[in-house]
Every structure is written in structure tokens, then in C-alpha cells.
């Protein structure tokens, strides 16, 4: 116990210095103490499952993701804290780290961080619902008639595309189609481009003059 107590004050000091070092040292903690000692049995089980998840992240296999989901569901059943569940979906420090990665001098208040966290969830809801279905926005969000009409027409095309495949699987092509068609998703066009054959890409290159000859 004495050895485990030693790093804690260092972590507390590092809290004031920077957020990034927090994330790093938290990972170090998990590595040092794989099995957490807890008084409650439920807490033990939850912490062990969480540790297993974190260890398995390195493997990156499909089976691992399934196990993760099961573990998280068990955790939910054990806890049952309705109020805390509504607070945040994504970890706050993670989002803060991502924002700082862009510009280290950027400083964000706690409430702004919370707002960005919730907005990302809403954004994912929006992006995931529009490729396939007509209910374009979650019920709590207000919609605009002009955009709604456009999206409705767009969704019909996307759904027809998906129905032709007779699949119940949302794949990359559907997303890429959404991004390429909607102007509001232009900021994603560089990161979720439509897939092109190598031949066409090479032709475009030669046409642009980069390929030469």
C-alpha cells in the first residue's frame, strides 16, 4: 500500500499543470494496478471488467468490442444512477485533450466543454439517422422545412441504395454518400471521401498534370 500511495500526490500536482499529462498518468495507473482492491463486490467486478477492457484495447479485435459492450451493460445494471447517466456521454478530459491538440493555447470553460460534448452526441444522431431513415432529427430537436424537404429527398435516394443491397448494415458507402451530397457536411469531405477506383484516381492525376507525360 505504501508503494501505491506514493504516486498519488504527484498525480495531484500534475493536475494543475496540464490535462495531457493527466491522461498519460491515468493510463500509467491502470498499468500499475491491474486489479483494484474495493470493499464492495460489485465495484470489484466493475473495476476488473474496466481494467480488462483497457488492456484489450491494444488487441483491437472484433471479439474485444463485443465483450466491451457486454461489460458496459453489466456495469449499467449494477450502478443504476439515472442522474449521473445524463451528465456526459464522452469523457470530458478526452474532449479537452482533443481540443488542446488542435491549439495548445486554446482555453475552454467547463460549461463550454459540456456544451461541445453534448453537441457531438447530437451531431452523431443527426449523421446516423439521415443516411437511412425519414425521421431526420431526434424528436427534441426542431427542424427547418426547407432542409427537411431536401433531406427527405436525399434520404429516399440513400435508403433506396441501401435497400438494393438488401442489407441491414450501415456501411461506409452510405456515409460517404451523405457527406458528398450535403453542403453542411462539407467540412468532412476531406476525411470521409467517396471511394474511387485507382484507375479513375490516376486519370485525374494525369489530367491535373501531376502524373506527367
Amino acid at each position, binding site marked *: 500500500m505504501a508503494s501505491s500511495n506514493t504516486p*498519488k500526490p504527484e498525480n495531484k500536482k500534475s493536475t494543475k499543470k496540464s490535462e495531457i499529462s493527466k491522461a498519460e498518468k491515468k493510463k500509467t495507473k491502470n498499468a500499475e494496478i491491474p486489479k483494484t482492491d474495493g470493499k464492495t463486490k460489485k465495484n470489484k467486478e466493475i473495476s476488473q471488467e474496466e481494467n480488462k477492457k483497457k488492456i484489450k484495447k491494444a488487441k483491437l479485435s472484433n471479439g474485444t468490442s463485443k465483450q466491451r459492450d457486454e461489460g458496459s*451493460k453489466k456495469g449499467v445494471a449494477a450502478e443504476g444512477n439515472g442522474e449521473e447517466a445524463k451528465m456526459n456521454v464522452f469523457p470530458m478530459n478526452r474532449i479537452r485533450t482533443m481540443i488542446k491538440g488542435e491549439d495548445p493555447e486554446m482555453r475552454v470553460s467547463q460549461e463550454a466543454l459540456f456544451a461541445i460534448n453534448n453537441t457531438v452526441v447530437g451531431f452523431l444522431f443527426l449523421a446516423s439517422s439521415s443516411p437511412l431513415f425519414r425521421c431526420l432529427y431526434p424528436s427534441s430537436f426542431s427542424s427547418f422545412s426547407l432542409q427537411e424537404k431536401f433531406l427527405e429527398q436525399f434520404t429516399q435516394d440513400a435508403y433506396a441504395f441501401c435497400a438494393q443491397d438488401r442489407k441491414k448494415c450501415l456501411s461506409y458507402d452510405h456515409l460517404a454518400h451523405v457527406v458528398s451530397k450535403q453542403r453542411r457536411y462539407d467540412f468532412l469531405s476531406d476525411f470521409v471521401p467517396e471511394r474511387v477506383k485507382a484507375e479513375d484516381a490516376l486519370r485525374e492525376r494525369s489530367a491535373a498534370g501531376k502524373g506527367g507525360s
Partner: protein
Amino acid sequence: MSEAEELPRSIMRRVVKYKLSRCSEDGEISVSKDGLLAFSESGRIFIHYLSATANDICKESKRQIINVENVFKALEETEFPEFVCPLKASLEEFRKKNARKKVVVSKGKEDEPKKKRKLEGESSDKGEGSEKGEDNDKGEDSDKGVSGDDQ
């Protein structure tokens, strides 16, 4: 460090599947690996896009810390104004719960910073005064699991 720059995959999958299962009438709809990766990248770029826009607005008003009003204006500039109303509602809840936690924690210790006060509040609820660091880890993990399921 590369992992720190990505959104957690399990939470990402949960959010997307939750939404898809609500929209579909057939039942569950699966998401391919590439599709999930595209969602993850989209979310990450959206965070950068939104925070950069909010930062620009913040600089215009000659301030140094981005506050929540800057985020609302950024949402309008980035053509996602429909997020502002529900966001304000959830922000009110956030403030109330923050107030509660501060009251609970102030009974015990007043010297610690705000973030640790919240974590202390969680650990005191569980009845574990000792092993503060470990309690912090547990609290965060349980929050993830719980929040994912309810949404």
C-alpha cells in the same frame, strides 16, 4: 497519445446503434467497421471544427477562455442551429447538478479544486473514504457505462 486523440469506440458504437435502433422499424441495424470508423472520424473533425470556430468568436470579443455563449454562436455559424435549444436545456441541468455536488463536497473539504470535489462526492457516496485515486478511476468508468445505456 494517438488513442487520446480519438473518441472511445465503445461509446461511439453505443450512440450510433441507439439512434439507428430507434429509427428503424425492422429492429437492430448493424454498423460496419468502416462505417463506425467514419463516424468516429466525423465526430473528431466536428469537435475540431466547432472548437476552432468558437475560438475565433472568442478572440473577436478579445477574451482568452471559450465560454458557452461562444459555442452557441459557433453552432449557428457552422449551420447547426437546431442544436442550440436542446443544448441550453441540458446545460441548465448540468448547472443544477454542479451546484448539488459543490454543496455535498463543501461539507467535507473546501481546499481541493472543483474537479476533485466532484470525484470526492462520488467516492463519498460509495462509502469509501480511503484509496482516493482508485475511486476516481471507478467513478469515471461507471459514468461511462451508465450514461451510454440511458441514451
